[in-house]
């Protein structure tokens, strides 16, 4: 059983992330199963128009505020959140499964002595238990788990639950100034890849494989990605060859992604790559080998030479975007 569900809303640069709003929807489902209350909490310095999270069904949000917590600190966030959980009495804690969520959730698990279900994609009620489904082996299999400890933590895979359309409602915001900040681990510098979308967060990914023949040919992939507002992805072979950075690698030893659209260009579809992208909503494959495994998961395929097909796709996209 559980009485209080608390959803952690992640902010970066003072803006609440979409993945947290999606996580709140999963939280509503869990709270519904238990007949539990639900609320939200965020940590940061100044946060823009926090009441607007009400648009996505959030009624109450507490802002744990200190300018030293404007950027993430594992120690600072852990302490602030642990203190709040102790006071609030939440017994189910929910995070988005992001870099921050993955770092922070287990820290609270120790504080709360809670069992943890990471990267959940579905919840069902079976008798009195909430059963969480999560991918294992990079999505080659799924497991259904129950958490038996009284306190429970779940993280929610981004882009699986729909945050919904804005309703125009405003959330009630409670600001709590935090005075005692633990900065024993402190971010001293952020190195951002300016203007570049990350594959983990993108709605569309344009990804290239070894069939692109060389790093210089990724200029075409970048062009298509720019036109579509997409992130650039890469297969392991491409990253291992040093053509693209590891942060773009999709697959079992890279990132597991589920965008709305995944365009696989000259990627044959090794099992570890398919594991990382097969849950994408729509998959397009262009490959000259008609037997390439990528066509087994593709919604739309073109069997052909990427150096002829890709420039044609770019031209067609330019037409609809102009």
């Amino acid at each position, binding site marked *: 059983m559980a009485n209080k569900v608390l959803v952690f809303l992640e902010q970066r640069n003072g803006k609440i992330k979409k993945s947290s709003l999606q996580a709140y929807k999963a939280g509503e489902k869990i709270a519904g199963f238990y007949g539990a209350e639900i609320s939200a909490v965020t940590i940061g310095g100044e946060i823009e128009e926090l009441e607007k999270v009400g648009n996505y069904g959030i009624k109450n949000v507490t802002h744990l505020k200190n300018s030293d917590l404007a*950027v993430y600190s*594992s*120690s600072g966030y852990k302490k602030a959140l642990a203190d709040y959980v102790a006071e609030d009495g939440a017994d189910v804690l929910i995070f988005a499964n992001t*870099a921050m969520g*993955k*770092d922070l959730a*287990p820290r609270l698990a*120790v504080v709360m002595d809670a*069992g*943890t*279900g*990471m*990267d959940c994609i579905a919840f069902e009620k079976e008798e009195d238990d909430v059963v969480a489904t999560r*991918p*294992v*082996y990079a999505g*080659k*299999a*799924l*497991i*259904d*788990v*129950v958490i*038996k400890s009284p306190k429970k933590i779940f993280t929610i895979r981004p882009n699986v639950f729909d945050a919904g359309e804005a309703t125009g409602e405003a959330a009630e915001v409670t600001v709590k100034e935090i005075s005692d900040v633990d900065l*024993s*681990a402190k*971010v*001293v*510098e*952020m*190195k*951002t890849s300016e203007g570049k*979308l*990350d594959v*983990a*967060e993108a709605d569309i990914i344009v990804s290239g494989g070894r069939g692109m023949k060389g790093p210089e040919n990724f200029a075409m992939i970048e062009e298509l990605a720019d036109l579509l507002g997409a992130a650039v992805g890469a297969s392991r072979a491409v990253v291992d060859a040093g053509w693209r950075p590891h942060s773009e690698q999709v697959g079992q*030893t*890279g990132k597991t992604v589920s965008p*709305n*659209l995944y365009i696989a260009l000259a990627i044959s579809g090794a*099992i*570890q790559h398919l594991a990382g992208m097969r849950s994408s*909503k*729509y*998959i397009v494959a262009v490959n000259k080998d*008609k037997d390439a495994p990528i066509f087994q998961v*593709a919604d*739309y395929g*073109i*069997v*052909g*030479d990427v150096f*002829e*097909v890709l420039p044609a*796709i770019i*031209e*067609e*996209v330019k*037409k*609809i975007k102009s």
Partner: protein
Amino acid sequence: MKIAVCVSHVPDTATRISIGADGKTIDTNGVTYVVNPYDEFAIEEALKTKESLGGEVVVISLGPDANKETIRKALAMGVDTGVLLKTDEQRDSLAVAKALAEEIKSQGAEIVFFGKQSVDYDNSIVGQLTAELLGYNSVTVVVDLKIEGDKVTAEREIEGGKEVVETTLPVVITAQKGLNEPRYASLKGIMAAKRKPIEEKEPASAENYVEVLRMKKPAPKQPGKIIGTDASAAAELVRLLREEAKVI
């Protein structure tokens, strides 16, 4: 300086997964097990840290006898000693972390490396759990690391960039691909590893909080349509993405 590296023994990433007879775990028949890929970066970083700071590296793994293969691989790369926390039972992440934390404490290790996640259960939390149980600082998903005296500077990968984190010893670091280039074990290293001790111990007992009810295969994806065999198909593709899928 005592340095520890915690490793897991996992199915090779090229493995096709089928469900075992218990309906809760994979069928291990014919599956090749390897050092967890991210743990190779952890082992390499432990060795580099020893080379610059001096001291000794111990590799720790929790699991069945078969995990000795992975321990032996770490010893062959240059790790000094090995500990197998031997159990045939499945443990959840927190129960694993509780046993590892006890062992790290008894080893007196002040710098501890993990891979950022095991590619079997993909939780990516054992490093953080262990750090919190020990009361150590920790930085996860690290792609660059400097340790000078007590001061630790680590770069961790986040969405669309990197955070440079400063903290102090004792510390747990979880390694991401890109942190280093893992060395190959030399023939001499492989021979030497055969003589290095692997101590077997009973892991500290801990209750599982997470129970696996069942394992299942994801719904198979229906293969779609081949639109064409040359550049002339591009227009139809873009039309379908726009009008049928409505994703662009």
